[in-house]
């Protein structure tokens, strides 16, 4: 997947979890949890959804690498290539 595809996928999955989320307001450096008012259950569900769609293993210790769009895309790209 490309950077842009991953970015779109993450936002698409966030919108499934939080239907009222407006993906247009997402900025790369912002904390997704703050931007979209995601609580710990939402975030756990986001990890589940990303794992399901990409089959990328995401250990719990790495959850903080998914907090922003930029870091999440970078992390998932690196894991996909590994």
């Amino acid at each position, binding site marked *: 997947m490309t950077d842009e595809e991953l970015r779109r996928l993450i936002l698409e999955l966030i919108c499934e979890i*939080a*239907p*009222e989320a407006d993906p247009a307001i997402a900025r790369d450096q912002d904390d997704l*949890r*703050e931007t979209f*008012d995601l*609580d*710990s*259950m939402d975030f*756990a*569900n986001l*990890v*589940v959804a990303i*794992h399901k769609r990409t089959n990328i293993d*995401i*250990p*719990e*210790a790495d959850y903080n690498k998914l907090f922003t769009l930029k870091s999440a895309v970078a992390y998932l790209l690196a894991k996909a290539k590994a």
Partner: protein
Amino acid sequence: MPALGADMEAGTLVEWCVKLGDHVKSGDVIAVVETQKGAIEVEIFADGVVSNILVPVGERVPVGTVLARIGGAGAAEATSAAETLAVAARTPPSPARAAPEFRRAQPSAAPQASRLKVTPVARRRAAAFRLDLAGIRGSGVEGAIRLADVEAAASKASTAPPAVKRGLDLSEMRKAIAAAMSRSKREIPHYYLSETVDLHAALAWLERFNAEKEPIDRVLPAVLFLKAAALALREQPKLNGFYENGTFAAAEAVHVGWAVALRGGGLIAPAILNADKKSLAELMSSMRDLVERARRGGLRGSELMSPTVTVTNVGDRGAETVTGVIYPPQVALVGFGRVVMRPWVVDERIESRPIVSISLAADHRVTDGHLGGLYLAAVARLLQEPERL
């Protein structure tokens, strides 16, 4: 119409999930009602056959109104679905709840309409269509409006029964919260206690527990809080039950009302049944399901009627401490603040440890601070032994 909350007065029937002649069994969802807390699925708690549907879609009726009747298999007499539901619902504790204005007075509710001659069935159908009876010409005796007149008017206006509004109205939910919390503060002499607890052992254990699991099977720290809070209630049953009509009655099971914040505002605390007996995996699954349905719709009436205590967890983006307001007629609310890293004395050395503030709001009519303190100590102790949760 079941009472789906401490101060619910009425609800609007928005969907029948059964029809005349359908066989139903205990636990089936038979209808959906719109309340201040959103659309709630209403279950039946008896087996039988639907013999009469009394409230049409779109009609708003007071709590206690019979919605439908079911006949037991082979039984001569029909059973009221609402009466059956009422058995499961707790009796509203406040005398104000039995106010006579909530009796089935809908036909005479509008003074202007009451002067018209209208057959009962026509009046109900007009309400379902949201039609003004004053604008309908009656073809019955002395100009009485009959069902056919209402249907003709509806047809002329090209109004199929309007899609009754479903989904959450946050301003209505705010009113419900205001009513319940005002009553709580008015009637319940709260006392508050808190305990600061080191979560090092619990979180280290949880990290190992989750390490080899797929994301879907991982458990959140909130689940440990829930289980510890529920187990500790076994030690202090006076915090688990209801205060009604001047008397406390301990609940036989621990059904935790888990407070779920809704996006955009609002709060609802549906029950996680038998939380003290469920495994961590089961609790995680229940919590995930409940949070999703609380936010998307699909909560069941029984889930709103059955909590025996409330637990709130503000999560990792919440405040450091939370001091709750008891949801009547319950007698306690347990709050977990945000987990924070703080200096903590361990073996006479200062270490950085994950800390959580646990609070208890309890009803002084039932317990006192000594018992409350024992409860919080039990929660703290259980969190030091996470493998036993």
